[in-house]
């Protein structure tokens, strides 16, 4: 496989070095950029992020030409990956610390994870840790047309999120296979039933 050039949007937000290292580890050539022309014409694009929705979209919009460059890139149909809040801002609206308008490249709202599961058991939020991924029922092709194509169902991903709908998928470069462990026995302090497995939302645009 030839090395792909991966442009990482550097807008002053996020653990960009960690993302660049992951790209290198996965066999790509990372290029950090805040230059709109470079971003609009990138081969592949990553929009990273560690942050709150409002601050991130504000940081992005504060850089002249950046939002338009990302839109132009998205319209080109070339592959784009949003990570963490960088993925959440691809949606219409985020509800973290107030309501904020996202880029609207993917329809939907990003909402806080409730403090109780659908079964009414308490759960700790943010959800932090390595969790198995499941293929959602509506995807008959599984993940074949996504960045997760080579991942076995049950592969564990680290996520650290307090919002759902927009899924946060981190450390994707080196997913560590795992098997789904059996549910924990009842504990006096634990949520009684495991949280429902979340449905990965398509945050990857394949070209």
């Amino acid at each position, binding site marked *: 496989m030839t090395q792909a050039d991966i442009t990482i949007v550097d807008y*002053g937000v*996020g*653990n*960009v*070095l*960690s993302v660049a*290292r*992951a790209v290198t*580890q996965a066999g790509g050539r990372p290029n950090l950029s805040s230059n709109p022309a470079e971003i609009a014409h990138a081969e592949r694009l990553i929009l990273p992020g*560690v*942050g*709150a929705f*409002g*601050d991130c979209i504000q940081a992005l919009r504060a850089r002249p030409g950046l939002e338009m460059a990302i839109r132009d890139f998205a319209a080109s149909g070339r592959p784009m990956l949003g990570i*963490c*809040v960088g993925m959440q801002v691809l949606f219409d609206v985020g509800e*973290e*610390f107030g309501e904020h308008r996202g880029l609207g490249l993917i329809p939907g709202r990003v909402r806080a994870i409730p*403090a109780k599961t659908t079964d009414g058991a*308490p*759960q*700790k*939020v*943010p*959800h*932090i*840790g*390595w*969790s198995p991924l499941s293929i959602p029922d509506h995807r008959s092709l599984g993940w074949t047309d996504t960045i997760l194509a080579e991942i076995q169902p049950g592969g*564990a991903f*680290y996520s*650290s*999120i*307090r919002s759902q709908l927009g899924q946060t998928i*981190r*450390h994707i*470069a*080196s997913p*560590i*296979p*795992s*098997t789904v*462990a*059996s*549910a*924990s*026995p009842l*504990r*006096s*302090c*634990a*949520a009684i039933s*495991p*949280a429902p497995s979340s449905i990965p939302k398509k945050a990857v645009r394949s070209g």
Partner: protein
Amino acid sequence: MSRIRLIARLDVKAPNLIKGIHLEGLRKIGDPNEFARRYYEQGADEILYMDIVASLYQRNSLLDIVERTTRDVFVPITVGGGIRSTEDARAAFRAGADKVAINTAAIHRPELVSEMARSFGSQAMVLSIEAKRHAHAAGWEAFTDNGREHTGRDVVEWAKRGVELGCGEILLTSVDQEGTRAGFDIDLVKAVSTAVPVPVIASGGMGSAEHLIDVVNNGCADAVAMADILHYGRSDLASIRKATANAGIDVRIVE
């Protein structure tokens, strides 16, 4: 219920990995990068770096160590010790940190927790609490400066306040147990973990996998930090993980 996380804690006095007892009496152990890489390869769920002398911007500081670590460690890295402002936090993220932990700065100016949460998200804002049992009363007091400075704050109340302010996780270190290998302060961990809706990392006192199982089952810990049990090779993460899974606790299975 999320899986229980096993976190390798590395206390650093740059350029060395160090270890103390009750957070004092420090001994040099080795090169933190080498140890971090070993723990990643053994299957650590996360790496936690604590700079015990808060030398954030000095030459060969913790941030240089973090930057090197991100080359070959691909699990989340939390950085604490000496972070006093959002600018400091930003520098830590730029060096490759995924989360930052603050203690002293939050005690002096609690609004900093909110400012950081707004800038970086709650999930990246860890409130670090050094807890000491009251000598003549029930409960625990929060300390700063490696357990040396009193704050007058009750640990459980301070943890709740931290969550109101926006922290997304609590790193709870028992100064009494730290470095003793005698097990965690179960009562402390349970008191905090059941009082707050965010995950709590239990730290201080782990001498065996049984201690970990105890603090998860009886202390309601969401994650467990371990240091000298790993540093001195008394056990390794793979064996600890296996023992934990065998005890029926849901952990990531590393193949």
